[in-house]
C-alpha cells in the first residue's frame, strides 16, 4: 500500500468515524436541550408577507419547558388576543369573546394570524424522538458552518408532517433549516433560522422565516426583539383561568 492510498483510506475512516461519532438521537437531544428553557419571555414580531403586501404583528410569549406556552398579541388590531398551549392542546382567548376556544381537529391546521405558521406548528415541541424515527444522512457545510443533515420519519399516523428534513448546526445545536413534507413527499413548509446569538449560555436564533409551500408568494418572518431566558413568570400564567383575566 502506497503512502497516498494509506492517506486516502485514513481520511475516509476519519470522516466515517466523525459521522458515526454522534447518533441522530443525540443530535436531536442536544437541539432540544438548547431550545427548551425553564422559564422564558420573548418580545417579538411577525412580518407576514403575501400577495396583499406585508403586515406586522407584535407579541410577547412566555414559555415553561416544552409543554407550556402563552402568546399574547400586542399590535393594535389584535391587542389582547392570547394563544395558550398546554402540552398538545391549544386554547384561544379573544377580549370580545365570552368563552375560551379550544382548538381541535382540522382547526389546528388553520394559520396563526394569517401567517405561514399553523397552530399545529406550535405543538409537539420537545418530543421529536417520541414522534419521529430519526436518521443521520451525513454532514454538510452551510454558510461556512458544519451541519448535520437529518431525516425524520413519523412513527405514528396523524402527525402534521409525516416526513421532515433538518439541518442542525454542529456547534450551536440549532436547527437552522427544516423542510416538511407530506406522506407522498410533497414539500409543505420550509423554515430557516438565523441571527444566532448566545443568550445565558444558550444559542438562540433571533429570526425564523417560514414559507408555506401551499401558499403563493407567502412568507412569515418571526423576529425576537428581546429575550429573557431566566424570566420570573407570574404564577398560573399558563392556566385557563388566568387566560381570561
Amino acid at each position, binding site marked *: 500500500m502506497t503512502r497516498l492510498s494509506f492517506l486516502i483510506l485514513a481520511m475516509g475512516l476519519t470522516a466515517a468515524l466523525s459521522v458515526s461519532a454522534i447518533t441522530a438521537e443525540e443530535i436531536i437531544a442536544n437541539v432540544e436541550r438548547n431550545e427548551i428553557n425553564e422559564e422564558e419571555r420573548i418580545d417579538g414580531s411577525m412580518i407576514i408577507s403575501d400577495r396583499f403586501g406585508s403586515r406586522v*404583528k407584535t407579541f410577547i410569549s412566555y414559555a415553561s419547558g416544552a409543554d407550556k406556552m402563552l402568546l399574547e398579541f400586542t399590535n393594535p388590531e389584535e391587542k389582547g388576543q392570547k394563544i395558550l398551549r398546554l402540552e398538545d392542546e391549544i386554547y384561544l382567548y*379573544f377580549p370580545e369573546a365570552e368563552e375560551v376556544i379550544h382548538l*381541535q381537529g382540522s382547526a389546528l391546521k388553520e394559520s396563526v394570524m394569517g401567517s405561514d405558521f399553523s397552530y399545529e406548528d406550535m405543538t409537539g415541541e420537545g418530543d421529536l424522538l417520541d414522534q419521529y424515527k430519526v436518521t443521520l444522512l451525513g454532514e454538510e457545510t452551510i454558510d461556512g458552518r458544519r451541519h448535520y443533515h437529518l431525516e425524520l420519519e413519523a412513527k405514528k399516523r396523524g402527525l402534521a408532517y409525516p416526513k421532515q428534513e433538518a439541518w442542525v448546526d454542529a456547534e450551536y445545536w440549532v436547527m437552522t433549516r427544516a423542510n416538511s413534507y407530506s406522506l407522498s413527499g410533497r414539500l409543505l413548509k420550509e423554515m430557516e433560522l438565523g441571527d444566532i446569538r448566545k443568550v445565558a449560555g444558550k444559542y438562540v436564533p433571533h429570526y425564523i422565516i417560514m414559507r408555506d409551500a401551499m401558499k403563493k408568494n407567502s412568507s412569515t418572518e418571526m423576529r425576537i426583539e428581546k429575550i429573557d431566558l431566566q424570566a420570573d413568570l407570574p404564577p398560573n400564567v399558563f392556566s385557563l383561568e388566568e387566560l381570561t383575566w
Partner: protein
Amino acid sequence: MKLAKIAFRNIRRNRRRSLLSGTAIVVATMAITFLFSYITGFLGDYESNVVRYLTGHVRIRHVEYDEHEQLNPLHLSVANYEEVVRKLEAEDGVVAVVPRTRFFTAIYRNDQTFGGIGLGVDFEREKEMMNIQDSLVQGRLPRTGEREMILSAGLARDLDLEVGEKLTLLTKNKYMGMSGMTFLVTGIVRFQVAGFNDSFFLMPIDTAARFLKMDDEATEVLVMLRDPKQVDAFVEKTRVILSNSGWNDLSVQAWTKVGIIYGMIRYAQNIYDIFALIFFLLASTVIVNTTMMVIYERTREIGTVAAMGMTPREIVRLFFLEAFYIGAIAAFIGVLIGVAITLPLARTGINVGGIMEGVDMELSSVLYPQLNIRSTVFVFFYATAIASLASFIPSRRAAKIEPVEALRAV
C-alpha cells in the same frame, strides 16, 4: 254554412268519440298552460332572488375584490360607504341602496366546528331588498351597534341553538389576523332562498365592522332600480358620480354582467325552453294522434257521405270543421282549467323547500307560478290550429278512396 251544421251535428251525434278527442286536447292545453306559468314563475323568482340577495341591479365593489373573492379580502372594500349610499339614494328611479359586508367564519359549538357565512347589513335599508323582517320565524331583528345576530333556520338547527343563546364566532379580520366575538342570537330567519338557509347569519353592519376591524367600510353596495331596463344608463351615471367624488378604486357593474350569475339565468331559461318545447311536442303528438285516429276510424262514414254525393273537398272541409270546433272548445276549456289551477297557486305558492334543501341555487323554497297572458293565448290558438290541421291528412286520404272501397273499411 250547411257543412258547419253537419259538423256540429256529427260532434253531438257521437259524444263519446268527441269527448275522447276533446279530453286529450283539454289535458294537453291545461298542462302546457300550467307549465308555462310555472316556468315563468320559476325564472322570475330566480331573477328576483339573484337581484335581492346577491347582486342588486347595480353592484359596487372595490375594483380588485372579485379577483380575490375566495380569500375574503376585507381590506378591498367600499370605503365611506355611507356617503356612497346617500349619494345614490338621492338619484331618480332608485328603490333601495344597501351596503353589505360578507365574511366567512368558523363557529365553535360543543367542541365542533361549523362553517358559516356572515352578512353585515343595514336592516332598515334592507326592507326594500331582502325584506328580512318578513322572513323572521322567531325572535326579533338585531339592534344596531349591539353584539347581536340572527341565524338562518338551517344553521340554527345544525348548531342546535335557540333564540336567547350566545354564540362565539372566529373570523379573519381586515388585517388578515383573527377576530373572535360572542353574539346574542335574537332571532331565527327562514330566507326565501333555500340555499341561504344552510349557512347564513346576519348582524348589523356596524357590529360586523367592529368584529372585522373595518371602519366605515362595506364589501359591497347594491342598488335596486324601479325599472331594471334602465340599468346600463344607471351604471354609467353611478360611475360618473363616484368618479367625481373621488372614488376611483370602485367597480360599478350591472347585474347582467356580474360573473356567471346572469349567464346562469339565461342558461336556465334555455333549459326550460327546451323542456317546454319537448312537452309542447308531446302534447301536440297527443292532439294529432287522437284527431287522426278518430278520423281514420270513420272511413266507412266517409264512404257513405261520398256515396251520397259529397265531394272530396267538402268531406275534407267537414272534417276540418269538426276538428276545429272540438279543438277550439277543448283548448278553451283546457286553458281555463290551467288558469284555474294556476291562479290560486300563484297566491299560495308551491312548496319546493324539501326538494331544494341543500341545493346551492338562488331559488325560493316556495315558488309562485305566474300566468303569462301572451303564452296562454298562444297555447289556445296553437292547440286549436294543431287539432284542425291534424284532420287534413286522414280526411284527405279517406276522401280520395272510392266510396265502395271506403264502405268496405272496418
